[in-house]
Each structure stands twice: as C-alpha cells, then as structure tokens.
C-alpha cells in the first residue's frame, strides 16, 4: 500500500490504455510517453500492461506502507527516497515508511513510476488509465491510497540502458488525409517552420503557437487518433494526444508517428519542434 501525502501537479495511473474501444467513442488513453513507461515495467520484469504512475512537472510525495521495488523513468524530476537522490532507470528497493519525493525538473515533462506487479486501481473497459467519466478518480488526490500486489518477488532483468530514448525535437509524421488540400506555400511552412509549443497543452492535445492561415473547409466528421495534427479555421495547429476524442471535423494535415508521440509527451511550453515527413 502507498499513501499519497501530496498528489503533485497532475499525477495519473496509466497503462497501455483502452485499445480497440474507439468504435464506442472511448479514447485510447494510456501513458503519454509509452516508451518510458514500458522501460520502467521492463526493468522490474513486470508484464507490459502493468499500471504505472505518470507524473507531470511537479512530482508527488508518496509514503510506502509495505516493501516493494519501484523504477522511475522518463523526465528527470530529481527523485528522492527519504530525501536522498536515487537513480533513475534502475530497480529501487523501498521499505515500509520510506518516503518518495521529487525535486527540480531537470529534463523532459513526464516521469513514470513503475511498481513491482503494477498498481491495482480500478479497471474500466480493460484499462486502469484514469479518464473523466470512466474511472472514478481522474487524478491522484491527497490521502489517496494506492494498492499493489505485495506478494511478488523481484527478479532483476537484463535491460540495455543504452536504448533509453532521447527527446527528439524533430517530429516524424505521415501526410494527413487533408495534407494535399494545402497549397505549396502552406506545405512548405508546415515542413520547414520551427514551431513553438503554446501554454495550451495537456493529455488531450498540444496546441502550437504559430498560426497557419488557411481557408480549408471543415470535413465531414471523421476519425482521429493520437498524433493527428488538426488545423482549425483560425489557423491553429493542434496535435492530438492520448486522451483525445475519437472523431473530429477539422482537416487533418499530419499524422505523427507513434515514436515521435513519445517525444511530444516530453516537450514543455516554449519548446521548439519541426515536422519531417515519413513516407
């Protein structure tokens, strides 16, 4: 058991999300940077769909009631156990009464805390990923209690730590279904401009600061996925992320590659990015 002393800025339980449920209007959800959450689970020898804690910018303060192993990956929020710096990307033994906290954000945006056997929170439609109106909890709150399986024995795994991803500001994307409705100047702009992430970003979408003036007509409501870049009539470019709606009526000019979504998950306000086409 874990007691939440402080919830942090925006901490949610995530797993691989609700795959195959978009036909019901249910968002994919799941870890924003699935590379990092997968890595944390692999280091603990957890199954790949084990639920982890995704923390954002300001970490929580957690008190462990039982012993276990944890692993922290993704953004570097200066993790501390009983006020002593601990290593990231390594299994960490924690004993009863240990307190996990975080310091300064040194790199990235979202960090992942995996626990031996995964968190055992409410499961809705095959996933523990927190989502408004589906799970009872939308994010961690003070005094919450998180359960995990306390009977699992830790077995170390051999993971090649050289494969830890670096955040890449070059975002690889396929042409979106409506890309070819843009004229050549607009296409040039999309593929050469250095875009800036606005202060409007969350688990649903990232809005870019630069405007792309256009007169594209709306489309008949069609399918969107995490990674879809929508273009609004006002010229705003919106990159949809894991908690996005399943359908939309704005032209879809790009579709970001799965791997680049992991990078996007780690880019904060004012970060730069460029798009490059994947054929």
């Amino acid at each position, binding site marked *: 058991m874990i007691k939440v002393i402080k919830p942090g800025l925006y901490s949610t339980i995530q797993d691989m999300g609700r*795959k195959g449920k978009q036909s*019901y209007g249910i968002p994919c959800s799941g870890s924003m940077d699935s590379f990092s959450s997968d890595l944390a689970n692999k280091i603990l020898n957890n199954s790949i769909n084990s639920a982890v804690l995704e923390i954002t910018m300001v970490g929580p303060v957690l008190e462990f009631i039982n012993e276990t192993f944890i692993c922290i990956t993704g953004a570097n929020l200066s993790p501390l156990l009983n006020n002593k710096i601990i290593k990231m990307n390594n299994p960490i033994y924690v004993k009863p009464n240990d307190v996990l906290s975080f310091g300064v954000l040194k790199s990235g945006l979202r960090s992942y805390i995996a626990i031996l056997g995964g968190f055992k929170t409410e499961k809705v439609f095959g996933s523990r990923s927190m989502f408004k109106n589906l799970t009872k909890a939308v994010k961690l709150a003070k005094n919450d209690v998180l359960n995990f399986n306390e009977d699992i024995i830790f077995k170390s795994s051999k993971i090649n730590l050289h494969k830890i991803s670096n955040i890449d500001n070059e975002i690889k994307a*396929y042409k979106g279904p409506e890309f070819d409705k843009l004229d050549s100047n607009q296409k040039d702009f999309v593929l050469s401009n250095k875009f800036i992430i606005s202060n409007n970003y969350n688990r649903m979408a990232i809005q870019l600061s630069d405007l792309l003036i256009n007169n594209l007509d709306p489309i008949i409501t069609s399918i969107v*996925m995490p990674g879809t870049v929508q273009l609004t009539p006002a010229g705003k470019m919106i990159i949809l992320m894991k908690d996005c*709606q399943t359908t939309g009526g704005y032209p879809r000019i790009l579709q970001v590659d799965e791997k680049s979504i992991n990078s996007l998950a780690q880019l904060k306000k004012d970060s730069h990015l460029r798009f490059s086409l994947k054929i």
Partner: protein
Amino acid sequence: MIRPEFNLSYRRFDSKSILISWPNLIENAVLFDVLSFKKSINLSGKPLVEVIIAYNSLLVVYDITIDNIYNEIKSLKTLYLDINYDINESKIIWKIPVCYDDYFATDLENISNNKNIDKDEIIELHYKNTYRVCFLGFLPGFLYLSNLNKRLYFPRKVQPDLNIIKGSVGIGGNQTGVYPSNSPGGWNIIGNSPIDFINKEKLHKISFASPGDSINFYPIDIKEHNYISNNLDSYIIESEVSND
C-alpha cells in the same frame, strides 16, 4: 438489394493503420456500404486491433506495422469487390425517453424565437422523426445520428458551454444527439434523457445501440424523468423491430 458503386480512396494513416474514404455524402447507402465493408474486414482474419467507422470513412487499425502498404491496400480492394452487401439491415428501433421541459431545455426558447416555430412544434418535430445511428464518437457512448428534420437545423453556439450536463439532448447544425456525460459543448440544448449511454459492466456491449440501428425519442415529463433517473439499475431500454 442492389449494391451501389462507390469510388473509394485508400491511404496510409500511420504505421499501423489504413484510412478508407467514401465520397463526401451522409446517406444510408454510404452507411450500409461502410458497415458491410467493416464486417468483411473483421471477418477477413487480418491481425486487427479494430475497424473504426465514421459517416463516410473507415480506419483499419492493425495489430502490427504494415510492411508493404501497397500489398495491403490491394488486399483490401479485393475484399471490397467481394463484400456481401446483402446484409441484414438492422431493424431495431431503440425508444429513448426525453424530457423536453423548460427545466432542461435551456436553448429551446432561443431556437423558437429565431426560427419562429412554437416550442411545442419543435419538440414534436424532434421526437416524430426516426434517426439512424451512423457511428459512435466524440465522447464515450455518443451516437452520431442522421435524419434531423431540416426545419430544426440550427447553428452551433459560437462560444461553447463549459458544462453541458449528462443526458442533454442538443441540436448542432444539421445534427442532433445526446451528451452521454458531462462535457463542454456547443450544441443547443432542447431536452434531457435520463438513461445511461454506456454500460461499464459490459466489455463487448458498451453501448446498447450499434451503427445501423434506429432511434426514436419519446417525450416524458419531469416526474418520469426523475423516476427513471432514480431507478437506472433496473431500467431496460425499450426497443421494437420495424416492419418495413
């Protein structure tokens, strides 16, 4: 049933999915073609996560990276030629209770004034039509319906409301629908349905309605709305089978 011919376009959507688009039409012939194709893709034995549909499009989401996009598109095209259009068109009509009382119908007065149609007539025009479920999207359990009476077309709000309550029945442009959960939204609210549009207990029947089914709304008063709201656990959504 004679199968209409559509010119479809196929394109890669991302590393694991292919988007298929029909002409820009919202009509039953397209819907039935989309549904038939979805069914045959699901039965094809391909390694799929899901086939997602909208009015005039379909996304095939594979479980694996598509290595050879040209071959896969070719295989889908072959599948399309052979689809069995003689599907049993759904005859199910779901009966959805809606309370059109002013208490819920916060935008009814505005629509009535703007269109110069009595509130009662708007309500009647709304529940007398039979709507077709085209697909689900936007919010968990939200049904995209076709066949709104043209006299009820009314533009979305310029400034969306921050919190539209669960069950709100709205009109947005040429569409009508029910918000299955609290949500921001830009539709004009003319009533409220007390029923649940998603069932968290049923992994394979999350929504009672499937694309292709029909929906009828019927008016209830506030007392009935309250009664159904308070007895949702035992409430069974009525349906009938159409004869035509």
